[in-house]
């Protein structure tokens, strides 16, 4: 490999690392708002016990809740895997296969999260 090829692949890694950092911080800002709202909703919802009827009563057919929660899911989908990847890369530096775990987490969050949003939006009935 020539010196310029090595240098440009190093720059490409650098650019990727910088973009991942940026994405994680931007998603963190989104999550800051979503989590704060989520905590407030939770404190309101758990009074007197949690029931599916109560939850679905709020979310079923509600576009506002659906969009809010889907934005939440997407922000988690970006934020959590990058964080987990950082932790894994630092604690298992020699392992190359370990990078699959953040990808698995990303898929789980995106798919299961969206299914959950659809679930509470439809409430088991048809749309």
């Amino acid at each position, binding site marked *: 490999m020539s010196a310029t090829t090595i240098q440009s692949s190093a720059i490409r890694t650098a650019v990727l690392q910088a973009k991942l950092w940026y994405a994680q*911080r931007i998603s*963190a*800002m989104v*999550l*800051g708002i979503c*989590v*704060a709202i989520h*905590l407030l909703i*939770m*404190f309101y919802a*758990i*009074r*007197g*016990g*949690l*029931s*599916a*009827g109560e*939850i*679905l009563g709020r979310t079923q057919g509600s576009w506002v809740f659906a969009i809010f929660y889907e934005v939440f*899911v997407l922000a*988690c989908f970006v934020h*959590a*895997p990058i*964080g*987990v990847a950082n*932790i894994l890369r630092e604690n298992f530096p020699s392992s190359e296969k370990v990078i699959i775990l953040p990808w698995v*987490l990303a898929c*789980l*969050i995106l798919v*299961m*999260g969206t*299914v*959950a949003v*659809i*679930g*509470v939006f*439809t*409430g*088991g*009935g048809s749309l």
Partner: protein
Amino acid sequence: MSNRPTLDRRAKSHLSYFMYSAHRYSGLLLACFLPLHFFILSQSLKGASALDQYLKLSDFWAIKVGEWGLVTLLTIHLIGGVRLLMIEFGTWRGLRKGWIQAAIVISIIFGILFLVLAD
């Protein structure tokens, strides 16, 4: 003959490092919890009664303790995260130790609030 000493707890016994630790481990635990959280919520696809079966699990005190733990971890991670955003994107005003104290205090308050409000 032994190996030279390395950075140990004495080097890391300061507030900012403690907050980094709390932020990292709370994030890791929350990331592990997320798929389970979505799984339970997705039971709503099968209708309210299917979801209720899972919600009934929170009647066990062990689950309640777990939920309390999650609320506490989420609050720590949220406030610790806002602190990081202030350090990285805001005007430099030191290591924002006030935010560390706020994270500890507010996560305790929210934990208590959860226990009070949950049945």
